[in-house]
């Protein structure tokens, strides 16, 4: 099978790769670029464990073909922290124990970042509906929602101070 050459930007860095026409963006991230933060929980867009931001839009990487990423700007969980400094969402997830097993966590963090990018002051209901595409089987979502609301509040305060 002939391969397709793709040039994209992943977490701010240039990423060139070749892939088969049938490979998903999730396959490419995990198997070709070594970014295993995004997980395959279902492969059908139902669980959100592979959530990434593609050109500022929240997507399931399992529903995007690798070849479609030509020229795209991709953000994954690996790009959330700034060096040693965690993103407020990452810090709040740890502080609130918003994870048990942690396999859904990368998807939740990316989805929550996308929410806060779009809406810095979400209500609990808005958080719950925005995150309804991400499945968590461990927590019952309580601590996840609290962590997202807390992170959003902290980020608003930081922006206000700045």
């Amino acid at each position, binding site marked *: 099978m002939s391969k397709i050459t793709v040039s994209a930007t992943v977490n701010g860095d240039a990423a060139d790769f070749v892939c088969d026409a049938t490979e998903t963006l999730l396959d490419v991230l995990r198997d070709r670029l070594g970014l295993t933060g995004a997980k395959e929980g279902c492969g059908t867009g139902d669980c959100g464990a592979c959530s990434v931001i593609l050109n500022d839009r929240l997507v399931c990487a399992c529903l995007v073909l690798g070849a479609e990423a030509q020229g795209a700007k991709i953000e994954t969980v690996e790009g959330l922290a700034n060096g040693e400094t965690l993103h407020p969402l990452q810090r709040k997830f740890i502080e609130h124990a918003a994870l048990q*097993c942690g*396999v859904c966590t990368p998807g939740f963090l990316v989805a929550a970042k996308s929410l806060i990018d779009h809406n810095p002051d979400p209500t609990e209901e808005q958080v719950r509906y925005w995150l309804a595409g991400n499945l968590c089987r461990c927590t019952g979502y309580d601590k996840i929602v609290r962590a997202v609301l807390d992170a959003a509040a902290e980020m608003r305060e930081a922006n206000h101070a700045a």
Partner: protein
Amino acid sequence: MPLDAKPGMDFKVIGTRPVRPDGIDKVTGRARFGADFNMPGQLTGRVLRSPHAHARVKSIDVSQALKLQGVKAVVTRDDFNADAVDPALMDVLVNVMARDKVLYEGHAVAAVAAVDAPTARQALKLIKVDYEILPHVTDVEEAMKPSAPVLHADMFTDGVEPRPTKASNIASRVEFGHGDVEAGFQQADVIVEREFRTEAAHQGYIEPHAVVASMGADGYAEMWCCTQGHFMVRNISAHLNGVDVSKLRVTASEIGGGFGGKTTVFLEPVALALSRKANRPVKLVMTRDEVFRASGPTSSSYVKVKIGAKKDGTITGAYAELAYQGGAFRGSPVDMGAMCTYACYDLKNVQVVGYDVVVNRPKQAAYRAPGAPQAAFGVESVIDELAQKLGMDPIDLRLKNAARDGTKSSYGPTFGPNGLIQTLEAAKNHPNYKVKLGPHQGRGVAVGFWFNFGGQTAVSMNVNIDGSIALAVGTPDIGGSRASMGLMAAEELGIAYDKVRTIVADTASLGFNDVTEGSRVTFSSGLATVQAARDAIKKMCGRAAQMWGIPEDAVEWKDGHAHPAGANAGNFPPMSLADIAKDAGNTGGPIAGHCEVNAEGAGISFATHLVDVEVDPQTGRTQVLRYTVIQDAGKAIHPTYVEGQYQGGAAQGVGWALNEEYIYGKDGRLQNAGFLDYRIPVCSDLPMIDTVIIEVPNPGHPYGVRGVGETGIVPPLGAVGNAVSHACGHRMTVVPMSPPRSLKAIKG
């Protein structure tokens, strides 16, 4: 050293809420789960699965698959020597690779290893399996009928005298109880009798099963997989492949949820067989479709409950009959279900009969308090109806009959100290029990019980040169247990929590550990951690004694330091753990504490749940408005993670109660093998889940710990069922109470 309770329980770090040691890895994407591990030269494996619910496998022809370029190995039933397999593990072998028959849709028939996934998928299409299709049965009640197709010609019901002469799908009959139920019913003023049915639910962990196996030409092998018990994986995978246990080393990856579903093997022995044949590492990962069709789920059930009570609410007799299907093999959790059925109640006359039934469905796997929720659904519903008939508050009726310290349980043992009464009283006083309900709303109460287990446990604690601690446990961490182990080690040693690093060690580095199951880890590995710390302390006191030139028993350990025990021992300044560690090389070498134990004394755990729901009269959809979990933890080592267990158990129970079910067609095939159609609760389905931690210490653990993981899924089916019944004005008897069922109940 005896397991003395800590005097006065004046904890310094136990009960605090520090961050978990694996937190950063899990929020940055660095944590390595089952499918995140790769080895050089690794091949991709795929499993061929039966499209039929029941069929004889007449022949398997793999010759064309082997000819495909890039295919390196194919394995079938012929690659496993059934004659050499322990009869107790024969069902496990037959489940991981079908032999003369396929017993359910999704049953593994063959597996390939190839250079990449497309080649492996193509190879599966080239394998020719000649099936002779047989009649099938997927429903538990149908399977018990004399006319049902029989799955196993050699299955004669155990526990029945005389032993039946005709094979059937009823693997066994169990019975528990005491007293005379018929006499009990004679004394009753009110009797309620009903039948209930629950559909099968899947554990629904977000991480599919995954394994990498690598066996070299010398017969030594390594394996990396997501499992609740890597020692179990090692023992079974080695045995089924005829390999010495010592030649296989298994490392447990981070595990993306298990809930009981990862307490057995599916892919692991197959990956090892493929790797041996290909002489290369082989990675096998299930798709979500395979997870639904071939792993898990729990039993579907038929439950009949009959309870009689006097006008004052005293229960005089309680009977139940349970039939649970365990999939295609014996071993449904009906025995545990029968033991738990009436465990919450102090009863003079009680009898529970259970039937373990086989059907053409995947072999059931444990799911959080396996067997208990189905029976509790029936009992808690009937108790609620009795309260209605007697005009009593449902909590008061339960308080009147609740099990307590000294109750002879319905399954035999006499209970010790426990917190059931406290959970009921806390529920009655909770603000959520007093909120006024609106139209189409209903409130439900239910209680639940789980045994909790102990089991084989080994822990190793190394005191490092700088005074930090490396704690190795053998129980995979599925919900934050490394944090709890670190807390217990720090408490006992008298050092800071962040000085302890807890890891889950591989199978070559520790003695055998039972699987992470039965809510046993914080109890058993915790108990072993405390013992290992006491072992290390004893050694450190010995080193201090040596340096001070005084007898060992003249040294005592306090607040992380060795002290001379009293004025007669001498006047030496206290020596810290770090001081002793630094000089270990000069005082006798490395210092380590160990514990190998078969942990006994696990403490039973009870919970009371409260739920308010609103049922939409137009659609039948149920919205949970408020949910409250009140449970006895014995002692909450890390309260945040205890709350997390309570909330997670409740959420899973709500999903089972309202949405989740395996739906089979007449063809015996699963119709909803995906998260779109098998709908677990999403974020917008649930409210915040309130928790109350009751602490009635378990005398069997030095800090009073009880397991907390499983009890939380026992009450929700009954609690939600009672709430929906009140909202609909009709007694709900089938789980899940999906919108069509609730709508039917409303419309009558």
